[in-house]
């Protein structure tokens, strides 16, 4: 992605990364709220990074990605609350379900690109939102609640989340650095020419869609266990917009951009809400400012300055 870094910077980044992980491991010492906040920031980051595999790496803007967050979340909730499975089986089922839904919806959506892709994904997102609201089995508008927290402890579960997110990010990183990841970027940059490289453009987009949906679903699944509840609003289009926002906030052209964006967003919303009831105004204003002044996102901007 043209972000290949020089040797000494790699070591700097590695150091920063290790420090970051140590910091994250220490979070439970900062109290339960912080633990909870960081856990949700991690999951938002994972969802946004998965979204960005499709957006930043493959060039497809999904405006309905919360659908997969919801698919993952509802699968866990249904498995546990309706069928009495444990959380491990439930999360595994959520992964499978997200992948299957990703394949089915992706198959229909990747026939289009650009604005049409965005609108089509939006339509699917809203359709499933409507289904969740109407379907008793999913708890209707109340959703499903009162799920047991795995391990009976927020702190322990935090480490489950941390580990899962780190492993997932690692896998996503491996994918973006893989030959498959390169084919995503080739399709993004120039689908026309990619076809002349023997890359099946539609199939490549679909692969990206499925991977993206699966990890977004994982984030939703883990989030449900953190929240112990889920409702239809988790699939509403404004939640999808949040992923887009977070990604652009951090920077769509840097792998860790959405992670940085996820943390900034989580803390910004947390602080803004404590300060003013017009916190949405603050978020909206920040969003406008980002678009106008930092279109490469915060991390994108920082890296640009660092590297001259």
């Amino acid at each position: 992605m043209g972000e290949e870094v020089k040797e000494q910077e790699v070591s700097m980044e590695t150091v920063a990364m290790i420090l970051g992980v140590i910091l994250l491991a220490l979070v439970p010492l900062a109290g339960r709220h912080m633990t909870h906040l960081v856990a949700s920031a991690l999951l938002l980051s994972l969802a946004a990074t998965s979204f960005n595999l499709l957006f930043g790496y493959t060039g497809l803007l999904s405006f309905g990605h919360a659908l997969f967050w919801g698919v993952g979340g509802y699968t866990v909730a249904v498995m546990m609350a309706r069928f009495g499975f444990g959380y491990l089986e439930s999360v595994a089922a959520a992964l499978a379900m997200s992948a299957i839904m990703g394949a089915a919806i992706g198959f229909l959506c990747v026939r289009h690109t650009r604005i049409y892709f965005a609108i089509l994904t939006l339509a699917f997102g809203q359709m499933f939102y409507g289904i969740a609201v109407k379907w008793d089995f999913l708890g209707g508008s109340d959703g499903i609640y009162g799920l047991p927290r795995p391990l009976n402890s927020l702190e322990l579960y935090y480490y489950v989340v941390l580990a899962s997110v780190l492993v997932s990010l690692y896998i996503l990183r491996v994918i973006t650095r893989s030959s498959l990841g390169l084919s995503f970027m080739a399709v993004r940059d120039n689908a026309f020419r990619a076809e002349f490289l023997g890359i099946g453009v539609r199939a490549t987009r679909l692969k990206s869609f499925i991977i993206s949906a699966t990890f977004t679903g994982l984030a939703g699944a883990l989030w449900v266990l953190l929240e112990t509840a889920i409702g239809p609003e988790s699939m509403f289009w404004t939640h999808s917009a949040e992923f887009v926002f977070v990604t652009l906030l951090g920077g769509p052209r840097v792998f860790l951009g959405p992670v940085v964006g996820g943390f900034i967003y989580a803390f910004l919303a947390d602080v803004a809400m404590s300060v003013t009831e017009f916190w949405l105004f603050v978020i909206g204003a920040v969003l406008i400012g980002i678009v106008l002044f930092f279109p490469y996102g915060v991390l994108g901007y920082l890296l640009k300055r660092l590297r001259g």
Partner: protein
Amino acid sequence: MVTRREFLGMLGGGIVGLAVGGALGYTLAPKGPSPEEMAGKLPGVPSEPLKIGGMWFLTGKFGTYGDMAKKALQLAVDEINASGGILGRKVEITLKDEADRQNVLQNIRKMVEEEKAEFLIGIDSSGDVLKLAPVVENDLHVVTVITHAATPKLTACNKLHYVFRISMYEEPIDVAAAKLVAEKFPDVKKVASIGPDYAYGYDSWAIFSTNLKKLLPGVEMAEPMYSKLGTEDFSSYIDKMLAYEPDLVFSSLWGGDAATFVKQAVSKGLFDRVKYYLNPMLGATDTLKAIGDGNVPTKAQVWGSGRYWFLYPPHDVWPLNKTFVSKFKSRYGEYPPYVSATSYTAVYALKAAIERAYVMKGAWPGQDDVVAAMEGLAVAGPMGPVAMREDHQGVYSVFWGRLTKGAPNYPHPILTDIQVFDFGEVFPAPGQTAVKCQ
């Protein structure tokens, strides 16, 4: 149904209950010393302020609820602080927005774990309250007083320890509605209904229709209709109703939806074709203001209820209501809706319970001490005396009133011809409900 005289009798009982409960009659309390003066005077009371966390919809389509609840909360806190706080501790509030849908539970946690709120009040959405209860019970362990969310499931389907609901819930109001119809409008033959398209709407219809069938077995009922929250255009629903030609329409729409519906029903002539229109959520000043005097139907009788009505209990027999209404009106320029009364009462209930627990314990009470004091507590609120039942549901009498133009005395329509139902008549026994638990 009770008459005015019976009500006075009930009121007496309530006041006795209050005395037994050991609550401090705050309406009678003279202006006390300031918290600063009181600080440290009482043994075992910490000197730092007491923080109460509140959560309602502060933004978005339902933002008006949070706004009104917040105003009443502020009123109560200012009163309490002006008269010595709670056992000398100054009260502070911290608020979170329930409209941040993705983070409701996280925000609740934040108030408790980070902002050190010792007690919680609020919650508008039934869905949220059901999600919240297990978290509070299993994890947060702080006394939480619900002021709005009305699902019967909260108190009937859960064994609650830390969570209490001070506000009336939907079941007694709907039961009372069935009684009202059976007693006052026995000529009803066909009933149509509309409600919001989620659990509350379904439950409300289930309770009303089950009870009505028992009381008036011959009544025919249309397939219930449900509209999504925030529906703008009810024309299609109204015409479907008209096609059915009912005598009575039961509507559990609330907030803006309730107002929009009435307005559109007026212009679509619904109230020329039906005789009665009942809405258990109509007795809310925000809704009535939105309806406006111009839309009060003249032909059909429109009846409404609510968790509180600012003209009931009558100001002459229950001065606390009068004080509350006049304070609220002079501070905020409008008459208080029910969310204001319930939040106001919630703060005083907490105060009463803490003080009672302190008396019993002789030291600042822990959460479990406050729970013990809340159980069986009776507190005087603007809506009358509220008794906390063993299932942690506050009980007080239900009213239904007829919609009438407010002019010239009030800026919006009001409810008159108030019919009161004693709580013994309409509250199901603890643990019972006509609604299916999940």
